[in-house]
């Protein structure tokens, strides 16, 4: 078994890439072509190697500049549709994840008490045997469902699921219910697609509902939106904070938190009452044309003004501007939409407004439902069918949450079921590349759930908080050191390949899962010799050589023949503004208004939201990002702070129903007076993270667990806090 790239391979790669360049393989000249023309690729193996970023889930193509076996610089791959030659600050910093002095470089087995951080180095053999034995022991004593598995969006997620389903456990925790359940569930129910793609080429009017695109950067989309604004498209932005996106918007509307859906429903009201919609499109493709006027009649702009705090005239005008720009008008579906219990309704209203614009699936339309499944069109190793799952899922899908898609699940509910032991007790937890201690709301509860476990194993590249509280830690190779399965993006199948050799004894998860699978007696589910063999199997239908793909960075996919006829994968085959499915499950069939709770006198909405320099809960230890990030402080409106006698940069105590943190104050004009804001992902517990430990405070300590009964989405902004001098 080999998963390392030898120096000879480097040589081969250098020559092959140079040859590919000579053949005119590189289309857009930026870093890469110029470098090749300049003869930067030399016989010593110094040069550029194409691969794929993993600093967030946008997965930009990159070109890694390698000198003498070290990555010295990362450039955006001009040929990748997600990077187009650019990388965001996180992408630029990626090499510091690889060269983090706090990397875990050998398997570790806990020797002290859980949470003391005392581990001993162990061999792969011993660690894998230990994990497999524990998992089999739990399976024998309590059944396979007593093992919980959790991971986050990554290219080996399918192999992770493979191990879980082959093992026979239905208990799967992903980040999804903490992130985009509301958006995906709403769009599945309305359009029959998870997340329609956005197209900014022709857009004239864009409404962003809290989608902070200039800070929660998706490189190509951020760039497209920015260029649309540059050429004069109108951007309207709803957010209680003046973010960097707000500063790019023609209109920033600091709407009252939790009332986005009232704003949007009033827009729908204006459009249908005044018959401003694309009638032809609506009649042909939409279920609910007949009843929508009545169903929306109570949501007048005047009604919404009282709820949202936005003048009725403004809502009316924006609705008319939106309708006038159709079909080149777009309401962005959003991304992390886990804000309020009514966020599902916000998403339904967004789906409705896009349907009324007629932008969906029209040629060059702003919204496109044609999103291929990951791995579609590629080969896969053969494997037997999974065993039948007999146990209930601990996360309540679908027996408690009938409409939550099985692949999304309800992670926070799973965590709570571990604590209560209902409907049965879980005993083991296998976690890969995920940090639930920081990502789940109510950290105390998560730690409590960890306490219920007989055995916890974690795979990660650094000693994150979850690894710190685990019994065995397996060192994963960083994304610059390993292969991952090939990923098709817009007609090309892109490769993530090692650009340097793994440090220490770090291994890819393709290797780790296979090793573990074999020890669990599930070898038939992992029928590949090594990473390269897996990739070759994937590439078989494309009839290309792996060496070619390694040199070029991608393989061309065959043309998709299915384009043409517009179909929606819903029960009616149409866009369901009116949904029988929702009605049958006992929910409102129309997008509807649900009153959110409000903070008590003297309390604040606790808002969280991304910054451009960090991704979720895993990058705070990256020294380059640490260097260029602002200190994570609690934002409070400067006038409110003054009234309360709180001064900028002094320490404050923030208290919610479930927790308390200390953090420094940022008194700013850039937030509504009834809100405070924290950057998520800080306040790490692990002392194995020398850069991140003790820096900032954790929003997860404060977040109260609330689950939307329709989508299973956690309501992160529904936590209210009080703030006083520390």
């Amino acid at each position: 078994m080999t998963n390392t790239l030898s120096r000879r391979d480097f040589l081969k790669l250098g020559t092959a890439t140079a040859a590919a360049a000579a053949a005119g393989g590189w289309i857009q000249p930026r870093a890469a072509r110029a470098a090749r023309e300049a003869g930067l690729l030399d016989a010593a193996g110094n040069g550029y190697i194409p691969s794929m970023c993993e600093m967030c889930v946008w997965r930009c193509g990159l070109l890694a500049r390698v000198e003498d076996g070290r990555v010295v610089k990362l450039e955006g791959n001009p040929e990748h549709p997600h990077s187009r030659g650019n990388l965001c600050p996180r992408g630029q910093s990626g090499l510091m994840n690889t060269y983090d002095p706090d990397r875990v470089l050998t398997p570790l087995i806990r020797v002290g008490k859980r949470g003391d951080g005392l581990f001993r180095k162990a061999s792969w053999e011993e660690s894998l045997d230990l994990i497999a034995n524990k998992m089999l022991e739990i399976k024998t004593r309590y059944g396979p469902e007593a093992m919980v598995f959790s991971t986050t969006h990554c290219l080996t997620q399918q192999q992770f699921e493979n191990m879980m389903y082959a093992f026979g456990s239905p208990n799967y925790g992903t980040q999804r219910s903490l992130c985009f359940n509301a958006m995906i569930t709403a769009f599945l129910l309305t359009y029959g697609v998870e997340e329609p793609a956005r197209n900014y080429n022709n857009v004239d009017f864009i409404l962003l509902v809290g989608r902070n695109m200039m800070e929660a950067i998706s490189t190509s989309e951020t760039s497209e939106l920015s260029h649309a604004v540059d050429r004069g498209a109108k951007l309207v932005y709803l957010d209680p904070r003046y973010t960097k996106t707000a500063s790019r918007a023609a209109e920033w509307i600091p709407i009252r938190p939790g009332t986005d859906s009232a704003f949007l429903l009033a827009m729908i009201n204006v459009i249908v009452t005044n018959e401003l919609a694309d009638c032809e499109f609506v009649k042909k493709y939409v279920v609910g044309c007949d009843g929508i006027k009545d169903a929306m009649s109570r949501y007048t702009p005047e009604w919404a003004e009282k709820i949202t705090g936005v003048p009725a005239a403004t809502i009316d005008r924006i609705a008319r501007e939106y309708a006038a720009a159709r079909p080149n008008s777009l309401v962005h579906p959003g991304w992390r939409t886990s804000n309020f219990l009514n966020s599902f309704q916000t998403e339904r209203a967004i789906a409705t407004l896009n349907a009324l614009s007629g932008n969906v699936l029209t040629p060059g339309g702003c919204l496109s439902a044609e999103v291929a499944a990951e791995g579609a069109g590629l080969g896969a190793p053969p494997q037997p069918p999974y065993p039948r799952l007999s146990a209930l899922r601990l996360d309540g899908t679908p027996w408690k949450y009938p409409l939550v898609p099985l692949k999304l699940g309800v992670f926070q509910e799973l965590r709570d079921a571990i604590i209560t032991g209902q409907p049965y007790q879980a005993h083991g937890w296998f976690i890969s590349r995920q940090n639930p201690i920081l990502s789940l709301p109510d950290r105390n509860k998560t730690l409590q759930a960890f306490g219920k476990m007989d055995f916890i194993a974690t795979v990660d590249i650094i000693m994150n908080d979850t690894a710190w509280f685990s019994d065995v830690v397996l060192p994963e190779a960083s994304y610059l050191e390993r292969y991952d399965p090939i990923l098709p993006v817009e007609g090309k199948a892109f490769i993530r390949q090692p650009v340097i050799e793994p440090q220490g004894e770090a291994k890819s998860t393709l290797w780790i899962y296979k090793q573990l699978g074999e020890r669990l007696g599930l070898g038939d589910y992992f029928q590949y010799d090594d990473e390269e063999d897996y990739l070759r199997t994937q590439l078989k239908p494309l009839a290309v050589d792996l060496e070619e793909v390694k040199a070029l960075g991608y393989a061309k996919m065959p043309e998709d023949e299915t384009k043409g006829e517009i179909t929606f994968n819903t029960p009616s085959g149409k866009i369901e503004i009116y949904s029988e499915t929702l009605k049958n499950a006992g929910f409102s069939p129309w997008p509807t208004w649900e009153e959110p709770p409000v903070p008590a006198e003297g309390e604040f909405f606790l808002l969280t939201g991304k910054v451009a320099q960090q991704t979720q809960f895993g990058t705070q230890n990256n020294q380059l990002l640490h260097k260029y990030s602002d200190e994570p402080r609690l934002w409070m409106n400067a006038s409110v702070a003054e009234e309360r006698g709180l001064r900028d940069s002094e320490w404050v105590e923030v208290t919610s129903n479930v927790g308390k943190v200390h953090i420094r104050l940022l008194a700013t004009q850039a937030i509504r007076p009834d809100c405070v804001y924290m950057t998520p992902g800080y306040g790490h517990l692990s002392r194995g993270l020398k850069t991140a430990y003790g820096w900032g405070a954790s929003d997860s300590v404060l977040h109260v667990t609330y689950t939307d009964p329709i989508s299973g989405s956690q309501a992160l902004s529904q936590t209210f806090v009080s703030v006083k001098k520390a």
Partner: protein
Amino acid sequence: MTEINHHAFLFDATRCIDCRACMVACSVENKIPMNKTRIWVAGLGITGEFPNLQRETMVYHCMHCNAPDCLSGCPVGAYSKRDDGPVEYDKNRCIGCRYCMNACPFGVPHFDFDKGLVDGAFIDKCTLCPQRIDIGLEPACVATCPTDALVYGEWTDLVKEAHDRIAAHPGRYIDHVYGETENGGTSYLILSHVPFSELGLPNLPENPINKVSESVMEITIPFALSWAAVLTGVAAGVHMNNKKKEANAKEAETYDEKPEETK
């Protein structure tokens, strides 16, 4: 690729989202120590009162002036100006006097207090990535900018591009391209929606300050020489005059009795 005779950047403050990808890219490309940076964000940040706010951000680094004050202020010639744009610094010549820091109207050169004496590299500033531009690549900061707030190219093309943007979007920009004329022109051109002073940029005359001082300095030697001649003349005159006086005095002695001497 177009032939570049004068490398330049164009920064558009309306496009910058303060993501800092340029800063990270620069740090990695140029192996900048963790406690240093060659690019920083200037400007007032968020101004106004809720909810009437605006953000003013500028990516700040060496302007690569056509008439660099650092160069004219340097007593040992550690700075040089390449014909095609970059202002270069030679650490081997630098004596660490910090005159360049005082001379630069943009406050760009940074003195490296903890490394200077050991490594001899006293001053740190943007180099315009010669290791990249000389082989046809864009500077690291520009290459990665996700919103094209920073673009790179031939100076004359970028000046035209900047004026085109102003013309295409009336009311969006201040009708001026900073750096086109300031301080005799800079290789870093700036477009802004707010007064340039709010971005932290100094108000500079077209005629660079150092040119004014140089024009004075240029005449110092002839001036000194001619002044020396005048003084020499004066001195000679005075000398002659004194001689004359002495002679007259002696003459007078012959007529006057000298009581002290005779006593």
